[in-house]
């Protein structure tokens, strides 16, 4: 199997050399051999001992092509599955670009004010709305140049992380 660690742009290979017992296997990671002992798995989390160290990993996001995981006590990482396959899809498909028109909120919060209007021209970095969350005010900024086609938020409303804010074309 092959995974791409998006944050550092590196590809890592892992394969099972030998299954030793129901929970222990010998694996090859980037040419190096390790003993992998799985302690538990429950869909959201896995615990295992790799080499001789214990790890607890949480699967924060999981889509057919990407996942975001966190090694407990360490950083979280975004990973692409099947990186070669994706490259092919990406170059042949245009529909993916379409989703990039939507500005999404990077944080959850209450909409304090909306600084943009429909049909307004904006530049990348222009403030579209101000959210309040945990006594902090955070600006949501345009992710690209374009014209506001639609505003999906209203003042005083609550939005979640990744909720649609505005369609910019």
């Amino acid at each position, binding site marked *: 199997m092959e995974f791409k660690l998006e944050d550092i742009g*590196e590809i890592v290979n892992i394969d099972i050399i030998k299954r030793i017992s*129901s929970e222990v296997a010998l694996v090859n990671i980037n040419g190096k051999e390790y003993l992998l002992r799985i302690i538990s798995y429950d869909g959201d989390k*896995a615990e295992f001992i790799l080499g001789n160290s214990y790890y607890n990993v949480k699967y924060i996001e999981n889509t057919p092509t990407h996942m975001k995981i966190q090694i407990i006590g360490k*950083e979280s990482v975004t990973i692409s599955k099947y990186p070669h396959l994706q490259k092919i899809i990406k170059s042949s498909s245009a529909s993916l670009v379409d989703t990039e028109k939507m500005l999404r909120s990077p*944080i959850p919060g209450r909409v304090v004010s909306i600084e943009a209007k429909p049909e307004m021209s904006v530049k990348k970095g222009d403030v579209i709305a101000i959210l309040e969350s*945990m006594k902090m005010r955070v600006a949501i900024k345009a992710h690209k140049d374009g014209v506001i086609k639609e505003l999906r938020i209203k003042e005083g409303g609550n939005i979640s992380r990744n909720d649609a804010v505005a369609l910019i074309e």
Partner: protein
Amino acid sequence: MKIKKILIANRGEIAVRIIRACRELGIKNVAIYSDDDSNALHVKLADESYHIGPSNAKESYLDQNKIIEVAKKSGADAIHPGYGFLSENAEFVERCERSSIIFIGPKSETMRSSGDKMAIKQLAKSLGIPVVPASDGILDDVEKAAEFAREFGYPVLLKSAFGGGGRGIRLVQNEEQLRQEFELTTMEAKASYGRAAMFVEKYFPRIRHIEFQLIRDMHGNGRYLFERECSIQRRYQKLIELAPSPVIDEETRHKIGSMIVKLADALDYINAGTVEFIRDENSGNLYLIEINSRLQVEHPVTEMISNKDLLKLQISIAAGNEIPFKQEDLKINGFAIECRINAEDPFNDFAPSYGKVNDVIIPHGPGIRVDTYLYPSCTVSSYYDSLIAKIISWGNTFEESRKRMINALNEFYIDGIITTVPLHKFIMNEEAFVKGDISTDYITRYNIIKRLEDGRRDNIKMYKDVIASACMINIMYEGRGKRIGVERWKESGRFLRSFGYGI
């Protein structure tokens, strides 16, 4: 003790802290809570709990009417305000006084005078306490301003009396620039307010923030409980506090400490307070900037090095008791560090993070104390500030304290919320911090946020093998419709693992 029941006009970790103090003193305690806090730890721990309104603080924790009403209804004879919310609201203190409820803090009158920064500086000056060199009061004349600037030496700060929160402050390098800026700023101010109203203040290129803990009782006994070093800040928010300060020697400590006790005498200041200073890193001189007439977030570091319980002292003083120790009985014992753990993402411009917490493991061990409102399955509300836990470490030396803090940060685990723990881990191991080379511009000067992000990339590289293993395990199970392959627990009391997928 004439106090029998205390209403806690606050939430979060400080409400929990106050409940613990009440229990040690055998005083009943009453919690109040908003909608979002109905499941909060302070509600669970308190003797009584009253719902006080919607999540918005204006309609709950800041609603003076409702709070006074609950105090009366529950028979509370005192109110502890914690920090933030109504803790420095002189009007609220007055209302408590009128309702014959003991406000655990200074009198309304003292709170008003402590709140007037100009007046406090004047008073301090008259007592021989150094304050930041500045023009005596408001200037409307550019010649006077230039005169002061020459006296202090350039650069100087030109400040508008109508500014606030960083607005209307200009750093001025020479007289020509001073005259230009004075014109510009006074024009704006005159248009709005009818007069120029400017100050000139000496500028220090590099400062530390050092504050002294003060307590004083109704019988005129004032004590200082040493100082805290709060220089590690990000955008004027304190991140890490130390006690004692590594740059304050015994002589300075005693000199400044004695001075602030005199200042408290002059104000007839009663209860706990903090006198804030800046320290010019060139000269090593301290200059008073303001008084905070409440308990500070960072009070635990003082408790750790003085072995005094500030909450219990606050309550005892409010009940009219004398402080039960003399200044000379106080000795600094060891070294304490506090890391403020915020629900913010240090890798995403400190964006707030809130919601349901699934699991949480609060660190323990020798010298570790954690003040927090977190518990498994609790929630972090978006309505209140992002401070979720304070990890406090104690050691005989700075090094021991620092190493224990690193242990604790490594053991801290929370699932569901993003926290600033990685930032604290980075700083605890950062060279300048370890050497004690800190100042209020530490975070920018040493490019901490950028280096933290670079460190993250290095960590990811280091754990490539672990990440690959985790991905592989997940994909194996996803391929089988997310079935759970590892049985965890059987009645027999043993882990039985039946690993369904053939790896």
